[in-house]
């Protein structure tokens, strides 16, 4: 969790925070990407970010929900 606090920029912290509690639905993630990055979560830039977060093991999709892991 200390990692979450230290991450920059703020938008990245918001994405990862969304994966806590019960996780984020795809719709919620879409809304977040629109608000923070002005793009859809399916855009090439967002897909690249999500792929990197998944490779790090921080954020992944379990078939219904996006979840954060630290």
């Amino acid at each position, binding site marked *: *969790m200390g990692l979450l*606090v230290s991450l920059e920029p703020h938008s990245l912290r918001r994405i990862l925070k969304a994966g*806590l*509690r*019960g996780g984020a639905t795809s719709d919620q993630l879409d809304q977040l990407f629109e608000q923070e990055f002005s793009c859809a979560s399916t855009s090439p830039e967002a897909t690249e970010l999500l792929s990197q977060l998944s490779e790090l093991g921080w954020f992944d999709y379990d078939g219904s929900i996006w979840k954060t892991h630290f």
Partner: protein
Amino acid sequence: MQGQRVAIFDTDLASPGIHVLFGFTAGEQDLLINDFLQNGKPIKSCVHDVTPSPVKAAKGRVWLAPASMESDKIAKILREGYEVERLNDAIFDLVEHLKLDYVVIDTHPGINEETLLSTAISDALVMVMRPDSQDYLGTAVAIEVAERLDVPQLHLVVNKLPDCFESESVKQKVKDSFNYTPTAILPLSSDLLNLASGGLAVLECPGHEWTQSVKDLASVLHAQVSSPQ
């Protein structure tokens, strides 16, 4: 006392104490948070109904997820650690299982994995501080963390204010220091000192100034969490 269903998680694994307020003593067979975090026990088996009689009469329920007071279990969990996200999952599983209205997470005073998780997942964060230089410094750090984690509602509570301190001056000092007006200022009370955590002060001292301040704080939290901005 308003008929709500509440669970309390004692996540101060190094020095648990909430069970004392409810007069709960874990029996040998009782499962605790430690058993969930380290021994794979289901969280619903690690919570205990501690509803006081007046609360039950008001159709409310209180469950406690206590942490172990045994030194070897405390040492084990501090030494071995655990996946803190499991605590996150436990809380939300329990919300569904017990149909909870509120979850109260008590944390260790200070910054650690549990306090950071609690901060990140809370709808409202209540920071309790004493009117003491050490607490001013510590609170400043905690506020910075809370702001970085976008806590929706942050409430400062000044506790144990001696009666030689001017309440309005303290309120102003806190506001000047942190840019937050304290939501509550609780007096240092010899009645509470005499109670010595021997029960829940709001039930043991119902007419007390301290109790009224806590009830006012609860009303503010209820109103704000029920109608998020």
